[in-house]
């Protein structure tokens, strides 16, 4: 190989920019998180505290912009996309240049990437507290920002792959594999989960509804954790950890195995966020089983990290960087052990909807992401500014206070989650009633909530020290870009034709095996067993072939690493299979036409307006709308006399977005609505009547002094957007919700909405004991009716009274097996099994 050398200067300015942005946004994101944590302990933190701070100048029970439902999305988006996002970009820009031995392809693209990303974050920080949201977790940003994210991500992708194409290092190092997986998969996840139909510049409906939206959301949500918070950080670990330890990576072949298995298996595990819900059983089963299979691949990453430190453990005593890395990787191992555990359906029955989940994500977010970030910052800063770390003592202190903070945080959330989960499932000795009211369980875990805030406060304090340390380090040196001489090898790599990269023994064996496994899931009885048999045969054949000549497969992978394009395509295929195998069958099978039993009633225009307010206020951050197929859930939230009163998938099938929720800080609301009030064809009354809601939204402490729900006083002033309703209904119609639009004209919609609003307002302000409003003490009841019929509180009450309304549809005849629906094969094979068909009435 003849080589010539070239002198290149790395673009380290971009790395410095991203790093500083990450620290700045990290501080903000964590501070918002801390505020959110205190809001669960003291409802006054939703804005009332300003009264004390301003010595009474500010008056009111809360500030809309500061309510928990709006701030929590700001916290999650800020720490995920702003803190970890910028950190990841810093790490990727730094290491990719060095692993490719060339400067990033385009300085202009780097600049656009940086400033575009910061603008996106800024716009998120404004729109989220203002209540502009899509109502899906970690996918809250409104559609114009979604478009901007996609464009900027594409800029990043082009810049990255262009750099790969220009590289002066023939072979791709394992860190780059993980970066490739990150870029490809995040693109796929983000685009699909953000497909929406705009109704205005600031509002849109997701194109999927009900369980399909739930499925797509958690395919995205789970894999955002995988491919935004895990794979890029694993890549960063593979570069920075051996550098800092000055030790070779533990095992190259472990890298290969755990990389490919991680990328392939992770994607399937999304439904474990929806266990015991109305999601069809086969998907729940895949979610659980793939989560268990994911344990080993995840631990592969941890082993490669920790075992690389073998022979360097003594350095941990002196080097804060290695302390952070070692602890970070350990937390990764802990979180990825806990993950599969929580994905086991009976365990999940206890943990889901409680703070155990919150503890779980924070052992990953604080321990893995936060500590890996800190380690990387402390390693980078002296190199980027050509100086020494300003204070090693301070970095050490950051480590210890951060570690204590995480342990307090995670420990208290375990305690809170398990306590609440057990209490919610506890029956009285009589065996027929629940022992605890929901609020009692909330009150019980208040000490844990306070400890959580303390733990989070410790962590934030440590991070402030980190920020100071990095700033002082930067000030003590000056920004210098590394200049190195590199060998420019002869271009013998990137020559493999794509078709050759894909058609060879290892790839074909594996793809055929996976195809057969998918057929096993979906083929009708007996054909599926044949597919399984064939899959086993193929697997044996592959093993035999491999054993016969391991070098052949070895060489192939080696060659793949010299050809980034076929490698990238294969990563894309591996990552695309799991989602396709779940989402496409569900889109085909789980439609309203196939629903047996309960089918959702459509929202009236006013109820729809109210639902959009519910979404906009972020109610889903505390309230679920999903009664799981679990005894305590059905007993607590189901109606008396209905033995099958768990949530059925048809009940929310027209919900864009779905609102099943992921945690219960308040009770489930799936049965909050009810039947039409006698003599009305619009107004409904559910578990509680209109007046109850009127008092409760104003001051939740009225109903129960231990409630930590914010006051929603601002909804009594804000006006309902009647004008937007026709375009919203039209959009939903286009998405398949069977509104009789355009037969229903704009005027009809407006008239109907106002009629229902008047009716609800009258039920509040007329009659023997009308409610009053302290904002209008002298108003007559007619004035109050007129004023409030246009206000958001009425629309929201209309929606609350509708939640869960359905009618029965029953197709006669035996259960027919449906293609692509494994559950229907099972049902069809046992005709007596009428699990979801019959409504048993008991006790009436």
């Amino acid at each position, binding site marked *: 190989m003849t080589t010539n050398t070239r002198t290149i200067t790395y673009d380290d300015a971009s790395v410095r920019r991203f790093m500083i942005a990450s620290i700045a946004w990290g501080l903000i994101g964590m501070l918002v998180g801390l505020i959110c944590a205190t809001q669960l302990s003291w409802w006054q933190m939703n804005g009332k505290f300003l009264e004390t701070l301003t010595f009474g100048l500010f008056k009111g029970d809360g500030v809309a912009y500061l309510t928990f439902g709006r701030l929590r999305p700001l916290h999650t988006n800020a720490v995920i996309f702003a803190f970890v996002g910028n950190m990841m970009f810093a790490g990727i820009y730094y*290491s990719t240049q*060095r692993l490719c031995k060339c400067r990033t392809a385009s300085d202009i693209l780097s600049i656009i990437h940086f400033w575009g990303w910061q603008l996106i974050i800024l716009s998120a920080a404004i729109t989220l507290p203002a209540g502009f949201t899509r109502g899906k977790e970690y996918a809250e940003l409104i559609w114009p920002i979604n478009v901007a994210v996609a464009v900027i991500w594409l800029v990043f992708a082009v810049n990255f792959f262009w750099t790969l194409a220009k590289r002066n290092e023939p072979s791709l*190092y394992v860190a780059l594999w993980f970066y490739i997986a990150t870029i490809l998969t995040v693109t796929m996840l983000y685009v699909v989960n953000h497909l929406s139909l705009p109704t205005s510049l600031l509002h849109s409906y997701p194109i999927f509804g009900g369980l399909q939206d739930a499925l797509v959301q958690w395919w995205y949500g789970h894999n955002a954790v995988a491919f935004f918070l895990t794979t890029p950080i694993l890549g960063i670990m593979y570069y920075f950890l*051996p*550098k800092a330890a*000055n*030790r*070779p*990576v*533990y*095992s*190259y*072949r*472990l890298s290969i195995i755990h990389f490919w*298995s991680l990328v392939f298996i992770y994607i399937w595990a999304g439904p474990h966020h929806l266990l*015991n819900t109305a999601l069809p059983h086969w998907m729940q*089963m895949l979610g659980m*089983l793939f989560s268990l*299979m994911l*344990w*080993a*691949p995840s631990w*592969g990453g941890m*082993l490669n990290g920790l*075992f690389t430190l073998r022979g360097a453990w003594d350095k941990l005593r002196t080097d804060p960087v290695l302390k952070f890395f070692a602890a970070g990787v350990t937390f990764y191992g802990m979180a990825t052990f806990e993950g599969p555990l929580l994905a086991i359906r009976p365990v999940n029955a206890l943990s889901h909807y409680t703070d155990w989940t919150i503890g779980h994500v924070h052992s990953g977010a604080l321990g893995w992401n936060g500590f890996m970030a800190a380690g990387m910052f402390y390693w980078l800063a002296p190199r980027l500014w050509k100086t020494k770390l300003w204070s090693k003592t301070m970095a050490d202190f950051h480590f210890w206070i951060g570690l204590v903070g995480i342990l307090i945080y995670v420990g208290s959330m375990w305690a809170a989650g398990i306590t609440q989960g057990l209490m919610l499932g506890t029956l*009285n000795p*009589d*065996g*027929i009633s629940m022992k605890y009211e929901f609020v009692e369980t909330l009150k019980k875990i208040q000490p844990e909530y306070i400890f959580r805030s303390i733990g989070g406060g410790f962590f934030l304090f440590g991070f402030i020290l980190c920020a100071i340390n990095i700033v002082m380090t930067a000030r003590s040196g000056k920004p210098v870009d590394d200049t190195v001489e590199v060998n420019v090898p002869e271009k013998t790599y990137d020559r493999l034709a794509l078709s050759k990269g894909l058609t060879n023994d290892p790839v074909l064996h594996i793809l055929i095996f996976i195809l057969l496994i998918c057929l096993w899931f979906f083929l009708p009885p007996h054909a599926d067993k044949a597919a399984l048999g064939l899959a086993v045969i193929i697997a044996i054949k592959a093993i035999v072939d491999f054993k016969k000549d*391991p*070098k052949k497969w070895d060489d192939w992978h080696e060659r793949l690493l010299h050809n980034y394009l076929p490698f990238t395509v294969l990563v894309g295929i591996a990552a695309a299979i799991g989602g396709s195998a779940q989402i496409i069958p569900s889109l085909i099978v789980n439609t309203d036409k196939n629903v047996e039993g309960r089918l959702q009633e459509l929202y009236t225009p006013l109820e729809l307006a109210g639902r959009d307010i519910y979404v906009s206020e972020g109610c889903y951050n505390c309230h679920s709308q999903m009664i799981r*197929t679990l*005894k305590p859930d*059905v*007993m607590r939230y189901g*109606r*008396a006399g209905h*033995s*099958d009163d*768990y949530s059925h998938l048809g009940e929310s099938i027209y919900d864009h977005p779905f609102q099943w929720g992921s945690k219960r800080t308040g009770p489930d609301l799936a049965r909050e609505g009810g039947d039409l009030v006698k003599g009305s064809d619009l107004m409904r*009354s559910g578990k*509680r*009547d*209109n*007046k*109850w809601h009127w*008092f409760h939204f104003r001051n939740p402490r*009225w109903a129960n002094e231990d409630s930590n729900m914010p006051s929603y006083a601002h909804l009594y002033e804000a006006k309902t957007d009647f004008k937007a309703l026709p375009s919203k209904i039209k959009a939903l119609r286009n998405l398949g919700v069977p509104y009789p639009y355009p037969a229903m004209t704009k005027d009809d919609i407006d008239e109907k909405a106002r009629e229902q609003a008047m009716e609800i307002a009258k*039920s509040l302000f007329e*009659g*023997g*004991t009308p*409610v009053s409003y302290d904002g209008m003490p002298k108003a007559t009841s007619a004035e109050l009716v007129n004023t409030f019929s246009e206000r958001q509180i009425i629309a929201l009450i209309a929606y609350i009274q509708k939640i869960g309304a359905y009618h029965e549809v029953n197709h006669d005849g035996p259960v027919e097996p449906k293609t692509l629906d494994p559950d229907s*094969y*099972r049902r069809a094979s046992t005709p007596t*099994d009428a*699990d979801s068909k019959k409504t*048993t009435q*008991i*006790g009436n």
Partner: protein
Amino acid sequence: MSDTSPEDKQVRRGNYAQSKNEIVLREHEYDGIQEFDQKLPNWWLFTLYIAIGWTVVHWCIYYYTNSIQTDQQRVQAEIVSVEQQKAKALEETLRTLNDETMLTKWVPDPAVIAAGETTFTANCVACHGADLSATMTVDGKSYPLPGLSLVDGQWKYGSKPMDLFKLINEGTPADSEGHNGARMQAWGQVFSPKTVAEVTAYVISRNPKDFGLSE
């Protein structure tokens, strides 16, 4: 740090590591980073294999044998059993509970009244008021609450002790307009018959005259 002999470098890594049972340091370096090529830990491989095996076994058991109930079947059976127990408990309570025993046995029992008051305070005061007047007082001003007053001497749905019990147990009757449209939920869904009886006793104890008791 590279301490591999030149001989190692010529041997292919996979075969070499297996046959010699030694650790190989791969010769290629990426920006100064080297890689060992350790064999995969056996326990790690086994966790992967066991999980894969379990996937096949679990799927087959569920979809081929029908030996595991569906979630819906399971929970429905559990709830049916609860409903039956509830019906039985109600029946048993009603066997000894009637207008007379309520007044002679339940109301005079301080333990019953205390339990009833606890339940009432936790669940009923929002609508009926702490003083049962269905009003709340804020800054000296009185505001009506959604519920009916329970101290005004009027018993809209019947003035016998068991009328009250039935009302609390089953909620506002389906054919009633409710109180200015407001309807009470069926507390029997949440509470056992005994608890409902205790709350009933508590309400009666606050209105002794209406039920012919001395104060």
